C-alpha cells in the first residue's frame, strides 16, 4: 500500500492526544475506528465536529451483542475537508438500555434515535420525540433485538400458505454444480434446519 496517509495519521494523532483512553485503529485508507467509553462519546463527537471538521453525521446505528449483554452504538462521521470517515463505537449495558441524545450536535440524529429506540428499545435521554415511528401498534419486544424470535412471530401471526415446505436449498444445487462445499456455519441457517 503506497498511499499517502498524511490526513489519517494526523487525525489519529490529534484524537490520541485528546482522548488517551480511546482505542484507535486505522482500518484502511480513509477509515478510522475509534472505540470509546460511553461517557466520552458526547465530548468526542463535539470535539470531532468543532475542532477536527467532521461536520457530517453520515450514519448512526446500533448492534446487539447479546453474548456480551451489551449494545454497541456506532456513529459514522465524515469530513469533507479531509475525506475521512471516523467510526466512533461505544458499548452500553443491555439491561439498562439508556444513552444521552446528540441531537444538539446534529438535528438529524433525532430521527436515527427514534428508529433505534423503536427497533432496539434504547432510551435516549433528552430526546423528547421517542414516540411511535415506523412500526404501528407494536406491543412485542423491539424486533431488531436478537432475542426476538422473528420466525416464530411470523408463524404465529401471519397465515403461511402450504406448499413451501419442500423448498429446496438453492445453495445445495449450486454446490452440486460447482463442486464447492457449504461451510458449517452456513449449514446452520439452511432451509432444512429451520423447519
Amino acid at each position, binding site marked *: 500500500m503506497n498511499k499517502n496517509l498524511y490526513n489519517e495519521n494526523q487525525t489519529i494523532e490529534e484524537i490520541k492526544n485528546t482522548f488517551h483512553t480511546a482505542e484507535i485503529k486505522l482500518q484502511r485508507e480513509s477509515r478510522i475506528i475509534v472505540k470509546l467509553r460511553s461517557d466520552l462519546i458526547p465530548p468526542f463527537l463535539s470535539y470531532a465536529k468543532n475542532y477536527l471538521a467532521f461536520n457530517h453525521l453520515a450514519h448512526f446505528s446500533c448492534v446487539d451483542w447479546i453474548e456480551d449483554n451489551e449494545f454497541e452504538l456506532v456513529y459514522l462521521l465524515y469530513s469533507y475537508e479531509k475525506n475521512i470517515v471516523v467510526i466512533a463505537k461505544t458499548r452500553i449495558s443491555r439491561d439498562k438500555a439508556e444513552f444521552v441524545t446528540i441531537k444538539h450536535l446534529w438535528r438529524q440524529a433525532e430521527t436515527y434515535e427514534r428508529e433505534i429506540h423503536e427497533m432496539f428499545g434504547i432510551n435516549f435521554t433528552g430526546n423528547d420525540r421517542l414516540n411511535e415511528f*415506523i*412500526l*404501528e*401498534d407494536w*406491543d412485542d419486544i423491539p*424486533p431488531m433485538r436478537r432475542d*426476538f424470535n*422473528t*420466525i416464530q*412471530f*411470523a408463524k404465529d*401471526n*401471519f*397465515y*403461511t*400458505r402450504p*406448499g*413451501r415446505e419442500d423448498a429446496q436449498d438453492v445453495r445445495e444445487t449450486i454446490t452440486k454444480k460447482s463442486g464447492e462445499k457449504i461451510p458449517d456455519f452456513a449449514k446452520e441457517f439452511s432451509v432444512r434446519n429451520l423447519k
Partner: protein
Amino acid sequence: MFNDKEASKIVDIIKNFARKHSLWVVAYGTGCGAIELPPTMTSRYDAERFGIRGSATPRQADVLLITGYLSVKTLKRVIRTYEQMQEPKYVIGFGSCTINGGMYWDSYNTIKALDRYLPVDVYINGCMPRPEAVISGFIKLQQLISEGKADGAKRYRENLEWYRENQRKVIKNWRMPEYNW
C-alpha cells in the same frame, strides 16, 4: 321478443365488454413492484393500447394493483383504499410476495397471503414480474371480466366477516371506518 333473463344477459355482455376495455388503475404503489409500472405505462410497452390507464383517486379507479410485499401498516391503508373504490373493482396481486410471502416469508411485519385479507382476482407471479407479465396478467383479468368471473367485490361483500376476522387478527388497533355498501 326477449324475456327479462335474456335481456339482462345481453346487457351484461355489453357491460363487460365496456369494462374490460377501460381498466383504470389506482396510483398506489406498495413494495418494490411499483417500479415496473412506469415502463408498462410508457411508450415501449404502452399498456394504454389495452385500455389500461392510471387514475388519481380510488373512487375513480377499477383496479387495485398490489405491487409487492405488504407490511401491516400498509395493509391498513390498502384495505381503506379498496373499500373506498366503487364497483366494479378488481384486485391484482403482483409478485411472489403477495402469493406466499416471497423472500419476506420470515418477516415480522409483512403478511404472506394477500387473498386472506382482500379478494384477489388475478395473481401475477415473479420477483419482479416484467412488463410483459404484467400485461399478460391484465389480459387474463380482461378474459375473466368478459366471462363474468371476476367477482372479487361480490366475494368480499358476501364473506365480509371472514375477511374482517383475518384483518383484525393482524391489525391490532382497529380504527377503521365502517361502510354500508
